[in-house]
């Protein structure tokens, strides 16, 4: 699928969700179950993206020390946990990866 079609469909879907209850006001209630499930969406989706990016940089599981992305990612997780700072986490992770690539 062309990237522009993807963006238009993704944008239409997002707009549809944003206008959904504004348009349907009073005719629907959101079930409590769905409301509670929503807070798990970001950590679940993002973790599902993070794990392969760290553990499978070349599309196969790599738990060795030569997997620089796994080590740099672990460092970033610690920094994120300590500082809760987005920019610092990105900078620390990138610095770790560049240093590992320079040394090894």
């Amino acid at each position: 699928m062309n990237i522009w079609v993807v963006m238009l469909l993704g944008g239409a879907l997002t707009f549809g969700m944003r206008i959904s209850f504004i348009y349907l006001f009073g005719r629907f209630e959101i079930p409590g179950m769905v409301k509670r499930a929503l807070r798990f969406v970001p950590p679940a989706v993002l973790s599902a993206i993070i794990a392969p990016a760290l553990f499978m940089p070349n599309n196969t599981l790599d738990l060795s020390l030569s997997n620089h992305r796994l080590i740099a990612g672990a460092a970033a997780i610690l920094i994120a946990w300590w500082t809760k700072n987005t920019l610092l986490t990105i900078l620390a992770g990138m610095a770790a990866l560049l240093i590992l690539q320079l040394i090894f």
Partner: protein
Amino acid sequence: MNLTMKSFWAGVRAESPLLVGVFPFGLIYGALALAAGLSPAAAQMMSSIVFAGSSQFVAAQLVHDSAPGLVIVLTIGVVNLRHVLYSASVAPYIEHLPAPWKTILAYLLTDEAYAATIIHYEEDGFTPTSHWFFLGAGLVLWTTWQVSSALGIFLGAAIPSSWPLDFALPLTFIAMVMPVLKDKPVIAAALSAGTVALLMFSLPYRLGLILAALAGIFIGTYLENRKSPKEAL
């Protein structure tokens, strides 16, 4: 100054502190979207067509991984599901407005515009001009997002392509996930989604991603319901 403009500028002012966080986020988005392989035009247009930060990062990552279009669209939908809640929450306040107003405000209904607007509705009460507050908050955020994306795309083009800048995307996601891992159900959701993503990685069309996300959401919800069964219904 008349009442509508007063409301509008109050919305702009209420939104301003949030812009401090949004601006660098837009810069990073612009730079990373290029690194992920989007054209500058596509990267910029995504900021106005989709106009939802975290889903734009996720879409860029999936373009980088050559995921099929339908999977990218579905993932954008899942990541943005929470907007249904915002829609339900602001609906009673703008119910009386004509359709064009509802359409514009719905388009501007982001996390940050919602946060500023709902606080205004709840604390200052509903006034005949409060939709102007919503419009002010939404428009200043929209402008900031477009400008910061553009600047990020401009700066990103100057970064040598030999740099492993694509790694900054998963790093951004790490920075987004870690602060929300506050209780056992959320931690279990994140760990199970990550594990399923690894186990199912070889499935076609990157379906592993969708299955992993669903598994995480299911396990998190299940654990939470078990913790407080009375609220489960």
